[in-house]
């Protein structure tokens, strides 16, 4: 069947049918011919035997009586049968007794058989048999029969058989051609469809299903397969497009990148982008195929090689490193290199990104130069500033020393002035007339004013240079208030002012007694100074948070709103024109504020012009080195 392999189904089907028919017909024809031949041969043999028997028995008497003539005439009867060509009778000794030869057939050589024999030759059949009478052999008879007529019949039969064979084959051919169509046509159609699909690439075409037999099932299978192929094809098309877009995107990226991008295989350029070509100052053709290392500045070769080898071994190396390249024109390029392994055309390769950082490096060098210079400058300035600071500290020390000694020096003559004025006013050195007393009182007042000024200035200088020495002790706040009232009372009496303590809570506080008294004294004397009629009232009230407030309320001239802010600045006695009327140092509130801050307290004022003012100062009941709320109150 292997020979059939290359044939189409159509041919195979026809061939199979024809071969089958051929085999059947051939068998039948051969069988027919053989059967016919045998049939004729048998009938001839039977005829000849009966003739031989008949003629033999007819000749028995002749043989018996040796009558040749009768025998001869008996034989001549055989003339009637055209096919019998020779007949002869032998006597018991085998001698010729009688014979008949048809014209033209004289070549007959008789036999003397002991029994009946039939000899077949090409053209003849000869029968020989003994002639018996009462089991005594009287003689022998031989008859030769011409087979040519018989062979004609056989031949005719063969021709007929052949014709039948041919007709049969022809019929088989026609039937085969017809029947194969029912099987091969759908297959051929399927084949046509498949061919069309494969030629056009249109996977939306579906072969039509025309039957429900095996071919129908195959068609269904093909349709399912096509469905899948179509889905895959669409997917593939989408992927292909995405791939193309991606490829285009990345190609663009690489081609238009400002950085040099190259692909190396075995250290040789396999791809270079335009930026690299520009950077290298060479051409793409020259670069491709040339070794990368030629491009590296010679001092940098070991470093680049080392990095490459380490990376190949899988040792951890920084992805990015800086190196130096030498261009085709001999220019030196500082570069930042980022190398990684990829696959290129199926083989391991290196993707190297090279950024020209020559300008950056230059700027860095400049920057370093500037920085170094700057550092020098800063150092110089620092030294200068340190020296200046040193000088300032020295000056500050000198200032403090100067102020301290000046105060002392200024006070010494005041001692005499105040002391002797006091003696004179007490009339210890003799009587005074009213004018002398008046003038001496003026001297006394001026001397005290001067003393206050000197003391305030000294206090401020101490506070400002941070040399406040606090003397912390526990005392009764009311005692201090009473002391202040005792001192101020004469002044209030002079102006007919009512001076009183309204709320007098007995509170023991731990603070600097003298400083607290100084502040209270300042506030109360201020109130007396700026009040012409009405009253001055002092309230001592313990507050929450372990503090105590002391407020001094008056019915004095009051303070304008805009002046309130600058009230605690130095030399800000409200009405500069009124200094003559309200004599003072102008430092009292400023100093009070400074002291209160050192005592970790606070001082504030509320006022309405013409109605009066209330000064409030708040102190912690227990002064501590570092109060918990200092930071929050600072802001």
């Amino acid at each position, binding site marked *: 069947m292997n020979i059939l392999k290359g044939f189409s189904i159509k041919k195979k089907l026809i061939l199979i049918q024809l071969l089958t028919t051929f085999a059947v017909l051939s068998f039948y024809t051969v069988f027919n011919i053989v059967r016919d031949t045998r049939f004729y041969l048998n009938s001839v043999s039977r005829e000849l035997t009966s003739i031989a028997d008949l003629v033999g028995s007819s000749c028995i008497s002749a043989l018996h009586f040796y009558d040749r003539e009768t025998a001869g005439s008996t034989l001549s009867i055989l003339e009637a049968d055209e096919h019998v060509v020779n007949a002869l009778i032998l006597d018991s000794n085998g001698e010729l007794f009688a014979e008949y030869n048809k014209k033209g057939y004289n070549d007959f050589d008789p036999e003397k058989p002991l029994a009946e024999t039939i000899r077949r030759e090409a053209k003849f059949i000869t029968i020989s048999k003994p002639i018996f009478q009462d089991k005594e052999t009287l003689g022998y008879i031989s008859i030769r029969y011409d087979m040519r007529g018989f062979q004609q019949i056989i031949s005719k039969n063969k021709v007929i058989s052949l014709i039948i064979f041919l007709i049969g084959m022809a019929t088989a051919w026609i039937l085969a051609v017809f029947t194969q169509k029912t099987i091969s046509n759908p297959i051929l159609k399927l084949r046509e469809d498949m061919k069309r699909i494969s030629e056009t690439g249109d996977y939306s075409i579906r072969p039509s299903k025309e039957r429900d037999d095996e071919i129908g099932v195959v068609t269904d299978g093909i349709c399912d397969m096509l469905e899948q192929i179509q889905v895959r094809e669409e997917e593939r098309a989408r992927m292909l497009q995405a791939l193309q877009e991606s490829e285009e995107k990345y190609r663009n990226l690489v081609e238009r990148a400002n950085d040099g991008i190259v692909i190396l295989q075995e250290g040789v350029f396999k791809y270079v982008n335009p930026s690299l070509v520009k950077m290298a100052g060479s051409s793409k053709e020259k670069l491709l195929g040339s070794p990368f290392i030629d491009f590296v500045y010679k001092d940098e070769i070991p470093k680049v090689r080392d990095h490459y080898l380490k990376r190949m071994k899988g040792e951890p190396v920084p992805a990015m490193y800086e190196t130096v390249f030498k261009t085709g024109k001999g220019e030196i390029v500082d570069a930042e290199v980022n190398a990684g392994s990829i696959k290129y055309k199926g083989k391991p390769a290196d993707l190297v990104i090279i950024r020209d950082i020559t300008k950056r490096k230059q700027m860095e060098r400049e920057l370093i130069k500037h920085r170094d210079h700057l550092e020098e400058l800063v150092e110089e300035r620092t030294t200068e500033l340190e020296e200046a600071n040193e000088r300032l500290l020295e000056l500050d020390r000198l200032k403090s020393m100067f102020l*301290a000694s000046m*105060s*002392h020096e200024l*006070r*010494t003559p*005041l*001692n*005499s*002035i*105040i*002391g*002797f004025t*006091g*003696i004179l*006013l*007490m009339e*210890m050195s003799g009587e005074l007339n009213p004018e002398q007393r008046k003038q001496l009182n003026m001297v006394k007042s001026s*001397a005290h004013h001067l*003393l206050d000024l000197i*003391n305030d200035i*000294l206090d401020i200088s101490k506070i400002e240079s941070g040399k406040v*020495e606090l*003397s912390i002790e526990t005392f009764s706040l009311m005692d201090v208030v009473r002391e202040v009232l005792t001192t101020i009372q004469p002044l209030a009496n002079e102006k007919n002012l009512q001076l009183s303590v309204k709320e007098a809570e007995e509170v023991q506080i731990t603070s600097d007694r*003298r400083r607290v008294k100084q502040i209270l004294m300042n506030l109360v004397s201020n109130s007396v100074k700026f009040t012409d009629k009405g009253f001055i009232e002092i309230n001592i009230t313990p507050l929450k948070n372990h503090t105590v407030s002391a407020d001094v309320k008056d019915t004095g001239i009051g303070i304008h709103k805009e002046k309130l802010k600058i009230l605690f600045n130095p030399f800000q006695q409200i009405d500069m024109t009124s200094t003559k009327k309200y004599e003072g140092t102008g430092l009292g509130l400023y100093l009070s504020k400074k002291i209160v801050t050192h005592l970790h307290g606070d001082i504030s004022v509320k006022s309405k012009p013409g109605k009066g003012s209330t000064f409030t100062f708040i102190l912690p009941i227990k002064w501590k080195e570092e109060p918990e709320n200092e930071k929050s109150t600072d802001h």
Partner: protein
Amino acid sequence: MKKVLIIEDNEKNLYLLRFLIQNLGHEVVEARDGKQGLEKALAEKPDIILMDIQLPVMDGYETTRQIRSHEEFKKIPIIAITSYAMAGDREKTLNAGCTDYIEKPIQPERFIEKIKNYL
């Protein structure tokens, strides 16, 4: 009549103090520095000492301490004449052994009032 030792280096202040004490009818002994003050105290055995703090040779604190180291001066009133400038040192005068202090500048009325307590 009591004997008052005034230790003061400033002539005018010394004059003022002497004038006031003598005016009150008491005897005055003078010294012009700390060392001299100590000697005068030991020699004269005064009833009360007025001690300036800022003194040449030996200051008021040291002088007070040395005077107090003698058994017979354990209870004698020593009044320190302090300056406002030395405010922080006021406790130091008491610690050094002074009985009381009088602030400079001296105001005659107050001075007399205070000193009468010790005379």
